[in-house]
């Protein structure tokens, strides 16, 4: 695989990561909305499982193209508002980090495309 295609591949992965993080954002929103709901069980995104499935050789081509399926796990606890706010800020920082990475990948691809001009 040449460098150009590899860069595109990285860009794809950052895209999937962004989808995953924004899905995690909805999960956190849901937890916060339900912070006072009796009987509600806190949900979490299972990052290990998703990130593992992105590169796994046993995944089918279709599953790879569809991207990571954000698995939710109910972790049996009650919603702690402070914890959720911390998670929300962490998720926001990660999202910023990944968008910056995606931006620099786009810049790389642009400058590659201009080689020799």
């Amino acid at each position: 695989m040449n460098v150009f295609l590899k860069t595109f591949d990285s860009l794809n992965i950052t895209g999937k990561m962004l989808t995953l993080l924004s899905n995690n954002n909805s999960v956190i929103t849901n937890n916060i909305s339900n912070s006072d709901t009796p009987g509600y069980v806190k949900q979490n995104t299972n990052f290990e499982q998703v990130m593992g499935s992105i590169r796994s050789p046993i995944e089918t081509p279709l599953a790879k193209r569809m991207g990571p399926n954000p698995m939710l796990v109910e972790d049996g606890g009650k919603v702690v508002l402070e914890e959720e706010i911390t998670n929300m800020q962490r998720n926001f920082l990660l999202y910023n980090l990944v968008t910056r990475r995606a931006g620099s990948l786009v810049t790389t691809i642009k400058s590659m495309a201009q080689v020799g001009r």
Partner: protein
Amino acid sequence: MTLLNSFHIGLRGLLAQSKRLEVYTKNIANADTPNYKRQIPILTPAEDISFKALLARAKENVFSSGIKSSVPGAVDMPGVILDPTPGEKVYMPGHPDADENGYVTMSNVTILNEMADATMTTKAYEAILSIMSLTKQMGQKATEIGRG
């Protein structure tokens, strides 16, 4: 786009919490009304019933166990229940609401409880607002990818 989904969930959360605050306000306003029964708002987690969510859930039932849903729902406030606690009886023979023995049943609202619940609701509302504003910033970051 999953970020818009966050906004949708947040909006439903805001609506439910403000409806809840309305109930507490009504209780406080009626704290001195004879025969008034305190209303308790019910909150339930709402399931997402879009086609995508149902399909994801059906797939999970086949392929994996222990995972409930891959699409988060929201929160709903379907209604209120009446607090069955009997209100305090006060002896006021001339009162139009008095029974044959001259006792008036007052409301069973404790203002302190209602104030505490209302404060909790306000905090939850603020938390939802703050995550919605962060979501907005995330969206702005996403539109800036590849610029400049």
